[in-house]
């Protein structure tokens, strides 16, 4: 097949889910040998469209052609047979298997009735040489970094003979450096093997960096396809949201009262496997400031936050909230000291998906006199009135306060969490990944709320995997690596590349020398 020929063709594709038209009459051609970026807000329908191509969903309308052939059967098996491969956001690997075993899964080499480890490793080494993606076939997947795991996923699809490769938010879990490496790999397989790459992403600068063409989706529709060279981030952002977004209008009022509200001293916390995830970590947060914690996931951020909020026992050291030692206190008792918490995983910790919005907004306030008589009899009318007020104030978009929280989009669900926690009006806020998987509109709204809290002299501890977010919100930043703080910076005095150096442990020696 010639470079530039149409590989994949969507013709008037629609996908109706209950209550949601996820794809609305999408027609799109993707050509051989190009890197095609698909961007859009959360819930714009990017993943749905690609899941159709990979056979995970059968469209409710329209047709899909791969290499000129109409797709009749929609299953990953059929898609793989036609050369379509997909690397999902959450990897589909067996952690306890080796790299080679994972790549050869469902295609195992045998000698007699036995697994042929040597043949598997040889095949993988051949693939590695062929595509220039460095992995060691005998490593266990659970022992290697996320970036390498992603490579294993890519090799798996290549081994199955894919020439169209779909990457669903591939950089969400990567460090800046790993992202660079991934992009180098993409460029190489496109240049050398004429692969077709479709990359789904939120991050516009990545679109500019890696793609040849870009398609923008909004509310299920494809609103435009452009040559990347002819657009810039600003144009793309405004296509995505339908209106110009100004992401730099956060007003700060500087009125530090300098009381230390969060004080962590030499903290040690074990993770679920019993390993020391936080090891001798100290930090302080004053009222009226946002302290951002930058780090690659899995370096103890989650355990740190869980320890501060009472969800995980403290092994050593002290944590003081508003001057009170919290060791041994329950989450409820710590909240009573004046702390509210936006957790990193809203679905497992931040909401009850089976309860409606009202219930999720009122939790923790149900025993207040305005909502219950003698802390027992719930005043349903005033609860509803309150929920409706918060619902409007935080611009939550759903049918109404009776909507099941599990039916909301990620952004709106996050707004429910933020709305509830912020309206406790506590002097201390612990915020983890406030805008993960949230569209730009909701993200900007949440950022403004956070800064408003800061200006109202809250002490805010912010953990985020998104450096842009940390830069935008933090007054001070620290980097965390293997459970320790490796450096402290002011956001405007350090480059992102420098920060990522500290996040990967590069600065630990320097820190010791300081």
């Amino acid at each position, binding site marked *: 097949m010639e470079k530039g020929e149409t590989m994949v063709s969507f013709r008037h594709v*629609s996908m*109706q*889910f*209950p*209550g949601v*038209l996820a794809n609305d*009459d999408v027609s799109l051609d993707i050509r051989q040998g190009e890197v095609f970026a698909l961007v859009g807000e959360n819930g714009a329908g990017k993943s749905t469209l690609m899941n159709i191509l990979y056979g995970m969903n059968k469209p*409710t*309308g329209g047709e899909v052609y791969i290499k000129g052939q109409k797709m009749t059967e929609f299953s990953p098996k059929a898609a793989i047979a036609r050369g379509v491969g997909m690397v999902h956001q959450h990897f589909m690997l067996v952690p306890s298997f080796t790299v080679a075993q994972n790549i050869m899964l469902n295609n195992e080499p045998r000698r007699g009735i036995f697994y042929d480890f040597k043949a598997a490793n040889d095949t993988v080494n051949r693939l590695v040489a062929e595509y220039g993606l460095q992995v060691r076939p005998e490593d266990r997947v659970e022992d290697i970094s996320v970036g390498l795991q992603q490579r294993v996923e890519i090799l798996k699809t290549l081994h199955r003979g894919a020439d169209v490769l779909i990457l669903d938010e591939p950089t969400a879990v990567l460090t800046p450096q790993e992202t660079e490496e991934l992009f180098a790999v993409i460029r190489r397989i496109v240049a050398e093997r004429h692969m077709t790459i479709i990359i789904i992403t939120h991050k516009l600068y990545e679109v500019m960096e890696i793609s040849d063409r870009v398609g923008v989706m909004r509310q299920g529709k494809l609103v435009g396809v452009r040559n990347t060279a002819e657009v810039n981030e600003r144009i793309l952002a405004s296509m995505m949201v339908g209106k110009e977004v100004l992401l730099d209008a956060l007003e700060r009022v500087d009125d530090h009262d300098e009381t230390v509200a969060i004080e962590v001293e030499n903290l040690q916390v074990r993770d679920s496997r019993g390993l020391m995830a936080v090891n001798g970590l100290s930090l302080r947060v004053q009222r009226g400031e946002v302290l951002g914690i930058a780090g690659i996931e899995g370096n103890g951020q989650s355990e740190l936050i869980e320890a501060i*909020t009472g*969800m995980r026992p403290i092994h050593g050291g002290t944590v003081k909230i508003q001057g009170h030692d919290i060791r041994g206190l*329950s*989450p*409820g*008792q710590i*909240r*009573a000291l004046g702390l509210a*918490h936006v*957790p990193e995983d809203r679905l*497992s*910790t*931040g*909401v*009850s*998906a*089976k*309860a*409606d919005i009202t*219930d999720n907004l009122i*939790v*923790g306030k*149900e*025993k207040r006199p305005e909502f*219950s008589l003698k*802390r*027992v*009899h*719930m005043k*349903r009318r005033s609860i509803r009135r309150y929920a409706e007020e918060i619902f409007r104030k935080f611009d939550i978009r759903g049918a109404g306060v*009776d909507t*099941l929280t599990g039916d909301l989009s990620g952004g709106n669900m996050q707004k429910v969490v933020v709305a509830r926690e912020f309206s406790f009006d506590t002097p201390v806020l612990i915020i983890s990944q406030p805008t993960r998987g949230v569209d730009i509109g909701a993200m900007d709204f949440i950022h403004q709320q956070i800064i408003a809290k800061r200006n109202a002299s809250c002490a805010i501890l912010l953990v985020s995997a998104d450096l842009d977010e940390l830069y935008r919100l933090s007054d001070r930043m620290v980097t965390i690596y293997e459970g320790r703080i490796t450096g402290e910076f002011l956001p405007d005095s350090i480059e992102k590349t420098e920060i990522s150096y500290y996040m990967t442990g590069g600065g630990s020696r320097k820190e010791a020398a300081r």
Partner: protein
Amino acid sequence: MKKETKNYLVSLSCAVLLALLIGAVIMLITGHNPLEGYGALFTGALGTPRGIGNTLYKAAQLCITGLATAVAAQAGIFNVGGEGQMFLGALAACWVGASLNGQSPWLVIPLCLAVAAATGAFYAWIPAVMKVKMGISEVITTILMNTIAIKFCTYMANGPLKTTERGVNQGTASLDKLFRFDKLIPGSNLTETIFYIAVLTFLVWYLMTRTTAGFEMKLTGQNPRFAKFSGIRAERLAIIGMLISGALCGLLGMFECFGLQTRFKADFSNEFYFDGMLVAMIMRYKPVGIILMSLFFGVLKIGGITMQSRTGISSELILIVQSIIIFFMAAEDGVMQRLRLRRAARGLVRSAGKDGEA
């Protein structure tokens, strides 16, 4: 009403109607007139004071056991051990009651109520603590504890506590006439216990749907991590849910024995608890639904007997109808989703057609 609730009621009505329809078809096939059959069923259950009495008695039984399941389930614990809690509650109350024969009922009955509730609650507390503190599955422990309790009570009724009266098989000494709950409608099984049950039903409904404790229990059951995160004392609520569940079962055991049986008898229950558990599961642990469904199942059960005697249609048919309702409600989730998808797809085609015309 919430959309969710409305959809559920529609599904439930469909399931009930379909089940009755299938029942009618079976009657036709076996050469009976369905109108006659169902006529006998409903007049049997609701046509005479005696029928109404028996129906209410059965419904009350289902209602209490159903609510007992639901109140624990709301807090995230699945109590399969109600039968055992009921046996122990009944035996303890009867033993205390019979030992105080001759005393004032104003003293003895409240005391027995307390004993029955406390015994049932205690027997439910054991698996609850094992679950909360040690993570041992309550489903397994409660099932096994049923056997222990039932065998123990049977042994007591046949051995140490066996009555000296003649002609009474595996029963304890009879209770003072003044302690007994009298029949309200002659010839029916309905006793004064219905008033106690009505009060309990109201209290449990109120607790589950109108109080902060019920609200916190609900969130604990839905997402325990979220409950803990929000400062709810989830473990404590799970235990409280189990205590209430066990107390209700213990009380029902006492009602049965102080009412119909006039003593503890080892065969007083025909697995009552499991019927109620089923009702609770069909109604997804929603109190109002459980109350209504108990009434309906009561009608079926009692009417079925009349139907058999009057028209010769086997009362087993009622079991078939009940099973079909349960079957449909179990399939409801999947069926509804498919219907929604199909409707959505059809709507899409229609709107696409309109666009084409324009």
